């Protein structure tokens, strides 16, 4: 059974139709790279997966539960879907360590001691133990994003959603973050990654989903997607611009 599935979701702001019917599934352990031109609806699609945006119509089914059902416990379901943002969205009023600890303690009711131990473990994984007691304003973008990833992983999510995680970073630190993400993928994490990093899509992703004009225009394994034989004119013109 698919871990996460959308059935014909649309999203409109007034007369502006951003998503025009998207059917999508992801199986446990899969890594899907979502690419496509700006304004094509990639981020809106991703934000519909954990209902940061409410689809205008359609269904989002996660782990067998319809997120749009009237009495669904959205907080509980969201706690099992990690999200990483382009702008990191670390809580500036707490240290790196506290950022990772807070959701565990607040949502999972983990004791302070256990949350701290688990958080230090994760900071170790993202090479940030030396910055554990620093407030985010003292961290570089790459460091912030690694902590944001640790914060999401700390919840033991079944799937992680990445919304252009490297777009706001200086080029020289992009690979630090991509390395962490590749490590997660290698550990078997299910991931949906909206990205402009074609290298990541090619090497790490199991599938590449190309969203253009509010629709999925292609959903292929990377070797097929990036192959010379893929003659879809929209994809060709997009790839020419980004590669």
């Amino acid at each position, binding site marked *: 059974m698919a871990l996460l599935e959308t059935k014909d979701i649309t999203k409109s*702001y007034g007369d502006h139709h951003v998503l025009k019917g998207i059917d999508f599934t992801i199986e446990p352990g899969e890594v899907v790279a979502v690419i496509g031109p700006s304004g094509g609806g990639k981020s809106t699609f991703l934000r519909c997966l*954990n209902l*940061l*945006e*409410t689809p205008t119509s359609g269904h989002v089914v996660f782990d067998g539960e319809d997120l749009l059902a009237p009495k669904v416990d959205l*907080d*509980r*379901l*969201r*706690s*099992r*879907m*990690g*999200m990483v*943002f382009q*702008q990191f*969205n*670390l*809580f*500036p*009023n*707490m240290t790196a360590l506290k950022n990772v600890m*807070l*959701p565990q303690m*607040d*949502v999972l009711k983990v004791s302070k001691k256990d949350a701290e131990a688990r958080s230090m473990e994760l900071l170790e994984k993202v090479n940030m133990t030396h910055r554990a007691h620093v*407030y*985010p*304003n003292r961290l570089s973008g790459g460091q912030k994003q690694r902590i*944001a990833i640790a*914060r*999401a992983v700390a*919840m033991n999510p079944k799937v992680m959603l990445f919304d252009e995680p490297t777009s706001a970073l200086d080029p020289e630190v992009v690979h630090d973050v991509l390395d962490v993400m590749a490590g997660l993928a290698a550990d078997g994490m299910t991931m949906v990654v909206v990205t402009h990093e074609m290298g990541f899509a090619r090497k790490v992703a199991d599938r590449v989903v190309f969203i253009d004009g509010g629709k999925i225009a292609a959903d292929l394994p990377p070797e097929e997607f990036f192959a010379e034989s893929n003659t879809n004119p929209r994809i060709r013109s997009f790839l020419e611009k980004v590669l």
Partner: protein
Amino acid sequence: MKNRFPRFGWAATTAALLAALLGLAAPAAQAETTPATPSAGKMADLRSGKSTLKVGTDASFPPFEFTDANGTKIGFDIDVVRELAAKSGIKNVEFVQMPFGNIVPALQANQIDVGASAIYISPERAKVVDFSEIYYPGGLGMFVSTSNDTVKTLADLAGKKVAVQVGTKSVEWLRQNQPQAELVQVQTNDQMFSSVKLGQADAVVTGQPGGRYFIHEQGGLKQVGDRLTNENYGFAFQKSDSDIREAFNTALKGMRDSGDFTKASSKWFGDESSTATGPTKERGIFNLSSITNSWGPLMQGLGTTLQIIALSLALSLLFGMLGGFAKLSHIRPIRWIGKVYVSVVRGTPFIVQLFFIYFGLPQLGIQLSPMVAGILALGLYSGSYVTEIVRGAIQSVDKGQMEAARSCGMSSASALRHVIIPQAFLRMLPPLGNEFVSLTKNSALVSFVTISELFLVGQTIISRTFDALTVYVFIGLVYYVLTNIIGLAANAIEKKMAVYI
């Protein structure tokens, strides 16, 4: 609808609403409804000492009622009322300070039992309150500066500035009998005389005994012409308190028969026949003695002021938080309540709200003590500004913060508590500091509902010493220090909290 963060679920909003009701219920619980019990029960309670006779007076009208250097109310009315109450078997008497113009409304609102403040018996007043027998014959007199030789009769007041005290009989009498006089209406008794001495008015028309007392104490003025009216002072009672009034009348007759009344009269007015225009007393511009002699009452007033500020500040924060969250609620009626609160409270003068709460609500059966009314009014007023500060600060927190918290599975209440409010609070500090400076200054206005805070203590000192300059400079300084402490505190807290900026 576009996602609008932060959103508050039913649970958070209901909790906020509940807290609001509790907040409103707390003062309401202290409120007593206007007693429907007959006056007979009241008299029995007064005689047994179960309740206290509340006597409203404006202690700025020597020698009838004023305060000594220790802040104790003294004067002819005070002595006579104490004696009459004792003779009527009433155990406890409490004098409540209020501006003269508020005494009759306070009787109607059941805030006080007796008005004793050199009140003329007039048909208008007699419609809403009952009067005792005449206890002192008075009448309006005309007073001018000793150097003034042009005003000798009522006719001479045409085109002249005449100082009168707001809410006193002089106002209406002059309008009818000398409409060409230009009235200068001042709040307190001493301001009338000061305005003539300072050249702000040409003459004073006021009760003759008060004018003579001023001349006796301070000099610089003289009485001209004959008594303008031949009128009489009475004590005022609530219409329903006929037995208290009867008891006072009987006691008054007893005092006259025994000669006690004459004793009291000569103690305060001296020899009735003397019309001396005393010498002008020499003194410097600043008289530290005006402050030092009244240090105790001033510090007591400061204590009351601090208490009012602290409590109304807490209330203001509470109302501001509730109002701010109400305005951000995604439940329309609650948002609407927040909007109405801010628009009504910010759109009307504070003094109107204060008088509405203290004098208006008793007509709806909600009677609040002066302190509760004053603190509630200040808290409500300031809270409307804090509402906007809270709303603005919460909305200014990046919406990615709420998204990040919610996407971890945190509830909106948790996100608010741990993530949004701490960040918003830091942004609130500078405008909150400003608002609490305003609140501190506005606290002087609650003197109008008879709270003996710093400003009112100052006024009563002036009514005795006639030294407005020194006293107002001193009081201004005290407020200046207070507001600066608040400003510095806000800065210090901000600095301490801003470690992550």
